């Protein structure tokens, strides 16, 4: 357990430092000089940027981040787009260099399937349980009142209020 915590702590420190650097950077994310002339390409760039994580920030996409590294990545995305890459090629290019950590929407591959299937699976499971419960309730015999006389009296007083 301690090993995990040490790891967490060691990894947190650079994040905090990075966060401070990020905040100390320029005021906002996409700078005017980064914007591409072609509005269609620019829109694609923005959409892609929203799905890529700023590596030195804490849970920000490169589209939102102020960090220099995010700027570099934004420029890289635009460079690839101008060079004629498709959206998937750009993403593959970035993931090749920085690992799947940059993807804000994890791929549905390998162990990640658990993540993606968890919601629908839980829904199906709980609907199944609910269906069994509802069937049982609709067929249950009418109950007798299980309260003693004095409990009834107190309940009545409370409910009358």
């Amino acid at each position, binding site marked *: 357990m301690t090993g*995990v*915590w040490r790891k*967490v*702590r060691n990894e*947190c420190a650079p*994040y905090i430092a990075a*966060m*401070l650097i990020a*905040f*100390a950077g*320029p*005021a*906002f*994310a996409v*700078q*005017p*000089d980064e914007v591409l002339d072609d509005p269609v390409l620019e829109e694609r760039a923005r959409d892609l940027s*929203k*799905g890529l*994580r700023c590596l030195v920030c*804490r*849970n*920000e*996409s490169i589209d*939102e981040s102020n960090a220099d590294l995010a700027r570099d990545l934004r420029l890289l995305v635009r460079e690839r787009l101008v060079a004629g890459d498709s959206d998937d090629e750009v993403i593959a290019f970035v993931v090749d260099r920085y*690992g*799947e*950590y*940059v*993807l*804000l*929407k*994890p791929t549905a591959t*390998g*162990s*990640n399937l658990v*993540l*993606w299937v*968890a*919601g629908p699976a*839980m*829904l199906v499971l*709980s609907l199944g349980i*609910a269906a069994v*419960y*509802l069937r049982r*309730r*609709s067929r*249950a*015999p*009418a*109950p007798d009142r299980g309260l003693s006389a004095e*409990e009834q*009296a*107190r*309940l009545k*007083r*409370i*409910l009358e*209020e």
Partner: protein
Amino acid sequence: MIVEMGHFALILASVVAVVQMVVPMVGAQKGWRGWMAVAEPAASAQFLLTGAAFAALTYAFVTSDFSLRLVVLNSHTDKPMLYKISGVWGNHEGSMLLWVWILTLFGACAAWFGGGLPPSLRARVLSVQSAIAVAFFAFILFTSNPFLRLEVPPMNGQDLNPLLQDPGLAFHPPFLYLGYVGLSMSFSFAVAALIEGRVDAAWARWVRPWTLAAWLFLTVGIALGSWWAYYELGWGGFWFWDPVENASFMPWLIAAALLHSAIVVEKREALKAWTILLAILAFGFSLIGTFIVRSGVLTSVHAFANDPERGVFILIILGVFMGGALTLYAARAGIMEAKGVFSVVSRESALVANNVLLAVSAMVVFVGTVWPLVAELFFDRKLSVGPPFFDAAFTPFMVALAAILPVGALMPWKRARLGRVMQPLWGVLALAVAAGALTWALQTGRSALAPVGMVLVVWLVGGAMAELWHRSGRNDFSEKIRRLMRMPRADWGKAVAHSGLGVTIFGIAALTAWQQEDIRVAQLGETFAVGAYEITLNDVARERGPNFFTIKADMSVVRNGREVARLFPEKRTYPVAQMPTTEAAIDNGVFRDVYLVIGDPQADGRWSARTYIKPFANWIWAGCIIMALGGCLSLSDRRYRVAAGARRAPAGAVPAQ
């Protein structure tokens, strides 16, 4: 001196908490009334003593007592008074003190207003509540003591994080904590009921107002946090699916489920075991939230104060309370047999569907939040789970929930016929679909988001109105109005809260789908067009505030030749904390916000500027406020003021023993 007294009061409070944990529980087991009666004065004493400790800490902040380590780290003499006070909870130690103070407040409320409860149940509730307090007093005193002194006090403090120096965020934590900690009450009631071995309608009627209050505070707290992010972080984002936000959202979802399932227990004596489980889980998620925020284990933009050692302590608290409660649940839940019988198409079933959707969506958020940790620990994959995942995995549940809501709300108990339930709703449904189709036809982009939002808002608000109208009976108009006015406030509260959900959903959908953005470099005096607006950068001035320097732009917003607003976006630098913040200038409107941000000077003397047109942005928070108002209306229903009523009980009525 005052600080030492505060420290002493805190230690004393923890001793009282230990007494309140042990004595009433033993008394309740043995049937000793004297021992049970210890709980009430102890709960009051705990609350007052912790309040004294909190007051002492506030005093230290207000007077800038820099011999206190905490004050040095989080305050500065130049800081405005509001932020000196909010600085008390703008840090780990102080916020934990506030947390535990609110915990004792809820305990004291149960003691003060708990006259109508059976004495043994009340003793057990207060004992469990105090057990939680003991754990957190220990946490504060051993790992995060706010009253530590410095041997050599410095001349001045290091200032509060400038992002936190904001009215929205000053009140965000207290509300959030009132919500988080309010769920401890439901937890205590659940555990006490498990120990007692019985759950009945009266129990549910007791738990509901506490849960409702907690849910209401959580709603306001989350809305405040989201609103703060919207105007303070400088790009108008309002929800980031950040671990810390999820930490507050999961208890909100579970509390919403609990509110609804408690109705079934109260009216129909069914779903008892499930309701108990939800009550335990709701507080469990609160503790998980506290753990996530306080340990910083899941890195996020919000964890300003984090420390893994403390995380281990909270994890132990979480393990003990959840492990204990769930073990007790496993042993005892079987005794609570259901009584109500109902058909598959009924209000009961609709509430079960509501619970399934809310609970599963909370689990989806939970899995998404912890997945990066799980993937790294067990699969050695370092990955991120961000907004695109949650948008895809979570949204369908909310759409489904909103879709079934008006139908379920109109269902009668026990047995319903779908055809009859739908009768008052067909008109609303037609209107909703028409509004959605119109939105689809009018908008330029072809995103389904906004039309779906439009369908849902009309469906939910219209459905709530149709329900009220339907419930006022087949009468002439004036009689209907009279009946509407006399309707129980809980019915009004339900309609209002459900409408609020619709308003929030629409705000989110419309803002996401229709936002316009413009990024550019502008000269002084330059005018540029964004959407239907013409923005002029009139001037940029450098000024200084109480504890910051600022670059302040003067910009006018013109529409159809008429000036709509004159806005002054700023970019501040806080020299002590060495941090810049962007202060966006927003012209708020019912149908749109104009959101201006000024950036850096460029080499050629021009300025970078960002403009957003954000349609229906305020609907998001207005919907939250409407939801909270609905909660308040329900809470004020006289049927739920059991406690107040019990006090006024006729003098002749001797408590049944």
